[in-house]
């Protein structure tokens, strides 16, 4: 962990209120996401991990009435400036944001189409129509997601017939194909068996060469072995943030330590 790491996203005093909720779910969080690093979020159920993660590509805004306060800065590719994504309003701005900040969910979400089309889908949305270019990008993405060998002979089969672990890797390929800057994972392996889990973890740790990863996980071992930075959240607050080894070996806060050593609650 050297010191040349560059922030790619910065969360400043972020408050978030779900529509109709009396209390804010996030209460003024500050966090820096470093480029090409894996940042894990851990914490007890309901502490707001998913809420924070889902703010990072504003997927919350699918449902009306969510209130944000504070700033979420994302570094621009072109200018290198940090722009506040909470300022976005128009649908095509959102679309651009989400192409840069992709997301993978707990349950694999293959679209009901062929394997090929699953990966092609996002590419087509982003305006790529040329068959040759599509083929190339799709092969590359599937290779990056370490699933090419398993599917190359059945690209036209339905994606629904794959195993859970394969589906999850396909979803990763689908996101990766868009060359996002940041990938958000919300408990990507909690629906998978240990062997598929290992494959996904390996894949994620490979991915960080090209993208920045933020991962929410219930599994502390997973956070500790996979991530470079770890954030511990509790009741809507970020209690501790630091290099993973520090957080797991020398947590600064008693709350973090109690959680990590299983003496919580």
């Amino acid at each position, binding site marked *: 962990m050297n010191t040349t790491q560059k922030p790619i996203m910065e969360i400043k005093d972020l408050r978030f209120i779900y529509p109709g909720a009396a209390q804010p779910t996030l209460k003024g969080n500050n966090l820096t996401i470093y480029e090409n690093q894996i940042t894990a979020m851990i914490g007890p159920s309901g502490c707001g991990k998913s809420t924070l993660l889902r703010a990072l590509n504003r997927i919350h805004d699918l449902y009306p009435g969510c209130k944000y306060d504070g700033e979420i800065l994302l570094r621009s590719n072109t200018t290198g400036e940090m722009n506040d994504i909470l300022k976005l309003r128009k649908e095509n701005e959102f679309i651009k944001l989400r192409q840069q900040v992709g997301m993978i969910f707990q349950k694999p*979400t293959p679209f009901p189409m062929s394997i090929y089309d699953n990966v092609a889908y996002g590419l087509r949305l982003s305006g790529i129509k040329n068959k040759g270019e599509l083929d190339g990008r799709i092969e590359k993405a599937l290779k990056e997601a370490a699933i090419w060998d398993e599917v190359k002979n059945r690209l036209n089969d339905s994606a629904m017939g794959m195993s859970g672990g394969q589906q999850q890797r396909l979803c990763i390929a689908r996101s990766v194909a868009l060359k996002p800057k940041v990938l958000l994972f919300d408990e990507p392996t909690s629906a998978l068996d240990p062997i598929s889990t290992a494959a996904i973890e390996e894949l994620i740790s490979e991915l960080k060469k090209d993208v920045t990863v933020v991962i929410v996980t219930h599994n502390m071992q997973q956070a500790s072995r996979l991530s470079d930075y770890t954030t511990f959240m509790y009741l809507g607050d970020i209690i501790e943030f630091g290099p993973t080894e520090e957080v797991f070996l020398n947590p600064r806060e008693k709350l973090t330590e109690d959680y990590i050593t299983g003496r919580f609650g």
Partner: protein
Amino acid sequence: MNRLLLNKIILILSTLSAFVGIGFLFWILVTLTYKGVASLQLTTFTHDLVEGGIRNLLVGQFTMAGIATLVTVPLGVMAGIYLREYGNATRVTSIIRNLSDIMTSAPSIVIGVFVFAFLVEPFGTFNGWAGAASLGIMMLPIIISTTDNMLALVPKELREAGIALGGSKHKIILQIVLQAAKVGVTTGILLSFARIIGETAPLLFTSSNNQFFTMDMNSQFPSLTVSIYNLATYPDEASRNLAWAASFVLTAIVLFINLVGRFVTRSKHL
């Protein structure tokens, strides 16, 4: 042991009732087939009612049901989409959803009465449009609620995954959510078609019936089901036999569509 005996008795009774139920099905189907096949002739399909056939009736029934379906399906599917995708569980959405559910089970005769009031009475004559309209009104809520329910089965993560890839909402609905629910929605449409194709009550005084072959929707329109009702009550054997034949054909069509729907659902993985 008392518990064990009671257990036995109840289980036997349940099994018995199941066989009674299935017995009736057999009884109905067997008599229907027996009477129907016996009364069927080639001319049954090539002649119109006036000549002792059901050609015009089949065409009329399918025309009305077909028009009803063509108009209702887009409306119903779009309504279902609104309820599940845009409505966002607001009060209005849930009112519409509930009322539409209730409409599904509204007595069919009342719908006939309603359509009569504004499509028959003003024009002074029974007509095919009125028949199609009452069938459409019967069909609409069914399609709305199946679409709604099928869309509800699509995991919300699938939509979010689409959005997270940079799709706009209506594209995701059309290209992904509807795709995922395709089989269910199609089955729903098929089944609701099977349901209205066998309806009688709403047609009695909307389309009424016509002995002759006609495609003129502005006049009384031939209906298979209404004809069955009429024929069955005629005293002559030939009419009754034709009624049996028509019933057999109708039942065969309905059951066939149902079985197809079932088959489609089974092969769900695209």
